[in-house]
């Protein structure tokens, strides 16, 4: 269990029970002191075994992709035609070779860089934009807010996958364009979560209390609302990363994403499709399974985060 707990940054010998007892009970209307808030969340997350395992799996994939130049035994783009389509367990090529004689393991490791970046970077970039739009629309509830939400309604009329495909198709393939296409697609979804959370939180008593005790708008936004809206958005963004892994690889699969021969999990799956008729399943199956596992990990981490950030579930 030790190795799975390490990534959460929790000291291995954290004495849980006495620490909790020493944390002073926050008075009504006052947020708990900041360090204990994060700490409680981390502790709650570390108790969620499924989420911790998912985080460990994800970190493993990320590290493997980052260190692809060191780890990959072969070039991801140059193949050995004589070994074409050799299956799993070929000596020297544990995951076999693809239709052009390229090592599947090496392509998987290098491909992780592109597949992860294309999915995660847009989410990270859109996060502050969506936060701002949602806060403004949800807090002011004026004409500006109305206008923002009407605009988003129009974007919602496009199915997510379709909008991403259409934008990527129009912008042209390539790493940067795919990220742009995915980013634009994400804005309405993330902004709406920020908006609905803001509207919900504004109506709650603690905001009322802060306002009554003379908090300025700036204080109200930054100290009361932002932490709660960020929590909700963080959970959603984590889940979205999982979905975007699948969508981004799908764009590459359709040929509007990362440009071959650049390794990418979606391109690998599509390469595998063409050799399926030759009865070779491993080329398509392996990257598909990796996409599935990574997407699932993001979702499980998202679930864990949601529980960990819920104050009602933290202390017990």
């Amino acid at each position, binding site marked *: 269990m030790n190795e799975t707990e390490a990534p959460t940054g929790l000291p291995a010998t954290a004495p849980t029970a006495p620490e909790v007892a020493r944390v002073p009970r926050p008075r009504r209307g006052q947020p708990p002191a900041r360090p204990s808030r994060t700490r409680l969340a981390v502790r709650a997350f570390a108790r969620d075994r499924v989420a911790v395992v998912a985080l460990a799996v994800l970190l493993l994939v990320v590290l493997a992709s980052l260190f692809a130049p060191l780890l990959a035994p072969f070039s991801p783009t140059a193949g050995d035609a004589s070994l074409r389509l050799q299956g799993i367990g070929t000596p020297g090529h544990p995951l076999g070779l693809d239709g052009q004689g390229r090592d599947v393991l090496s392509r998987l490791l290098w491909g992780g860089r592109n597949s992860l970046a294309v999915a995660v970077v847009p989410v990270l970039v859109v996060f502050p934009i969506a936060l701002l739009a949602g806060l403004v629309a949800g807090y002011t509830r004026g004409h500006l807010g109305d206008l923002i939400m*009407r*605009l988003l*309604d*129009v*974007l919602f*009329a*496009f*199915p*997510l*996958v*379709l*909008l991403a*495909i*259409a*934008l990527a*198709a*129009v*912008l*042209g393939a390539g790493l940067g364009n795919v990220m742009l296409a995915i980013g634009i697609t994400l804005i309405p979804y993330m902004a709406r979560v920020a908006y609905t959370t803001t509207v919900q939180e504004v109506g709650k008593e603690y905001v009322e209390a802060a306002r009554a005790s003379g908090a300025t708008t700036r204080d109200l936004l930054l100290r009361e609302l932002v932490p709660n809206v960020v929590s909700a958005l963080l959970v959603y963004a984590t889940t979205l990363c*999982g*979905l975007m892994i*699948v969508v981004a*690889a*799908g764009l590459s*699969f*359709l*040929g*509007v994403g990362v440009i071959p021969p650049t390794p990418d999990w*979606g391109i690998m*799956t*599509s390469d*595998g*499709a063409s050799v*399926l*008729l030759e*009865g070779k*399943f491993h080329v*398509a*199956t392996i*990257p*598909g399974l990796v*996409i*599935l596992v990574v*997407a*699932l990990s993001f*979702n*499980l981490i998202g679930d864990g985060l949601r529980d960990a950030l819920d104050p009602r579930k933290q202390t017990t």
Partner: protein
Amino acid sequence: MIAVLRRLGSTVLVLLGVSLIVFLLLQLVPGDPARAVLGAGATQESLAAVRAQLGLDKPLAVQFLDYLGGLLRGDFGRSLTVNQDVSQLLLPRLENTLVLTGAALLVCLVVGIPLGILAARHQYGLFDRISMFVALAGACVPVYWFGLVLVGVLGLSLDLLPTSGMYNSRNPGGFEDLLAHLVLPAFTAALVPLAVIARMSRSVFVDVLQQDYIRTLRASGLSEASILWRHGLRNALPPIVNIVGLQVGYLLGGVIFVEVVFGWPGLGQQLYTSITQRDLPVVQAGVLFVAVAFVLVNLLADAAVGVLDPRSRRAVRA
């Protein structure tokens, strides 16, 4: 009545916005369309002539109004690669896509909702845990990959079902032939929305089953089946209908992958072909068709909720 009108009005506005975005989509294309038509060696005069012919010399707003007027007359432009009007090209394919998505939606409803209800009935039990984990994993499956696995295993290795097209090309049969060709793609397309619908149905039902009237029904000795399927479902259905309406969007987007993998002659496959050929008027119209279909489905879902749930009619008006 006022609520209905307001809902229709906002739908019209959304459709207007949709056509604007679809129109602007082509403005994002890098490069000069006139030069794309004529090639690199074109003279200034011939470029200007083509621009005038395509209406590109007018202001953007006028171009949009022209485009909108064309849409209202059923003119969706002309394909750049096939000598055909876009509407002629796309309408039969839209029909094929609706057959596929309809079948997939049926699978979603028939499997997804009961799965969610049974999981909620046995909340935190073994069935609940296993089925909901499978559903979470199912929602993460890349459809294009899943389709390939089905083609490989059920189609090629076991030779159980046809894996490509809508009808047997050498010996096209009738409805039975269509059904056989429909099984794999419909199931593939249904997988992700089915998983989402099952999870959502479960959480809706968990809420419903905790309500007081269910306890009253239990206390008065009604059978569990009657409580679940008659009284529980009646109250859970409105939110489920809304969720299903939204999942149709996923279905309409994901079906592109399914059609490509299974060679289904629908809108998605045409979009894919047109994208690879950079036949942008077809892409533009295809995207518009799907978005409009999605908007209308959600309008229908809202109408269905209004019928199913008398409370919502008052709530909207307030």
